[in-house]
């Protein structure tokens, strides 16, 4: 493929991906935008002012969403790194079954999972609370972390740890000085994945949070449903933010040119 054709195809792809977002972006800065106008007649930043006005729910939701996504990502890493290590390094009886079970939450519809968990969380007093939402966000985030990390560990040479022990490192020193530096790029990628997946959760947040835990996707659906295109536009732009930043940060790793996944040996 010639470089020019590649460039053209790349541009076409970008346009196809960005085009649907364009109206949302325009709505967030438009006043009175009606058919058959191609572009809004009047431009304004009022929707943005409104969104960040003292009485608006949006700043609070932004903080809640960020907090929940950070907590869910951290928790998913804490659980997913050891699990990924076990799956990546060792062969054991029933491994395929374990892998399938871990993948299941990605396949099973969120609403089914959410309703089932709701019953359990109700008895545990975890419904309508941020901790409950963080926990339920593990359902979609953990599989991503485990599979990224098991890929990283499949290329990790555990003999380095034995060598470190023999050179006088205690188990925790091995963890800190040998294992973590070797898998760090994988942790970054898995953590960002988990953050993004949690960030865009709707069904699970709604089921467990019961409307009391308000996150950006919840507001976005509400505003879009209410026909507030200007506010929906603002929320959509805010929701896109971290995704774009993260994409810019890890694009090289994700395309396989980088070292993040499977390049630790």
């Amino acid at each position, binding site marked *: 493929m010639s470089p020019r054709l590649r460039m053209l195809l790349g541009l076409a792809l970008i346009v196809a991906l960005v085009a649907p977002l364009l109206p949302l972006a325009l709505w967030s800065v438009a006043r009175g935008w009606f058919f058959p106008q191609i572009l809004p007649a009047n431009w304004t930043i009022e929707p943005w002012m409104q969104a960040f006005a003292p009485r608006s729910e949006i700043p609070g939701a932004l903080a809640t969403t960020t907090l929940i996504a950070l907590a869910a990502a951290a928790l998913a890493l804490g659980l997913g790194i050891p699990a990924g290590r076990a799956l990546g390094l060792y062969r054991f009886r029933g491994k395929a079954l374990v892998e399938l079970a871990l993948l299941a939450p990605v396949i099973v519809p969120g609403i089914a999972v959410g309703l089932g968990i709701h019953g359990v969380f109700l008895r545990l007093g975890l419904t309508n609370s941020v901790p409950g939402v963080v926990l339920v966000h593990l359902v979609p985030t953990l599989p991503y972390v485990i599979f990224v990390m098991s890929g990283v560990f499949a290329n990790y040479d555990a003999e380095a740890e034995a060598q*470190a*022990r023999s050179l006088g490192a205690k188990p925790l020193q091995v963890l800190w*000085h040998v294992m973590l530096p070797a898998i760090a790029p994988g942790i970054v990628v898995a953590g960002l994945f988990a953050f993004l997946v949690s960030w865009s959760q709707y069904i699970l947040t709604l089921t467990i949070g019961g409307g009391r835990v308000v996150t950006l996707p919840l507001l976005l659906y509400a505003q879009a449903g209410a026909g507030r295109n200007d506010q929906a536009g603002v929320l959509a732009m805010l929701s896109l933010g971290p995704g774009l930043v993260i994409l810019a940060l890890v694009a090289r790793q994700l395309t396989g040119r980088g070292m993040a996944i499977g390049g630790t040996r």
Partner: protein
Amino acid sequence: MTRLTLNDLHLRHPGAERPALDALSLEVGNGEMLALLGPSGCGKTTALRVIAGLIAPDAGEVRFDGLSVLHLPPERREAVLVFQSGQLFAHMDVTANVGFGLRMQRRPKREIAMRVAEALEQVQLEGLGHRCPHELSGGQRQRVALARALVLKPGLLLLDEPLSSLDAHLRTEMRALIRRLQRETGITTLVVTHDQEEAAVLGDRVALMLGGRIHQIGAGATLWNRPADLEVARFFGGCNFIPGRSSGGAFDCALGRLALPHAAPAGEGCLTLRPEAIETGEGENAVTLRVIETRFEGLLTRITAEVAGLRLEALMRAGAARGAMPGQDIRWRLPREALWVLPGV
């Protein structure tokens, strides 16, 4: 410096048919360099890992200076294991790699810098401290791995096939370096290898390990020329085994009565001699054989000859081999000092 004693070690890997260590006993003296020689899969690397504390044996004892160390984790044992692959930490440069053990001990920065520089000088890598492992050649990596162990001044150094990943010319150089450093530091060293020549050059003594236990231990030449049993003889390339009976300093067999060296075992057994020990010509223990086959093997030629249904193989230099043609009769001398009896075989 540490004296190492292995006492009746047993170990069977889970799911394995044969034990990796089978009543392994061994003693390495203070400041000695012992080469643990054996084919791949004989359990020699397992033995190193047990000594280093990375695997626990099923039964038996590991003693440093007479004291059991089995209850100690690897980081608290006086032994440092250098892995076959070198196992340099890819995210650290050479200086950080060599200083790793000292940093784990939380030594002062200045002391670490000093001792690392000293160790790099010992392995002739001064000035490469800032390089990353992937910027080093195979030989350099192996030397960094060696420096990383030596800098800790361990009581016992365990080397797992230190030369196996190197080219032939680097191997000779590295062998000399290991030998020299061991002499200089006097660190008790156990070096594992599958290469007979390497074992003979490196070890003050050589221990031959087969099937999880030591078959024979002694100076290299002893193992070559005075094998303890058939397996030892076979491992060192022995191919001539003549059944018969040893009595009164002579061996009676199909070849006649052959004079034996002093102190050869008596009784029923097998006579063995190395193929390269056979000479052409007349003299003591001269026998007539019919040449069956000659095979060119580079430096030496392998000649197979037969008498009374008994086959002998000889390895000879080109000059001595020239006379041997298939179908011809030939006179071979079996030097008395090269003969040895494997009793009860």
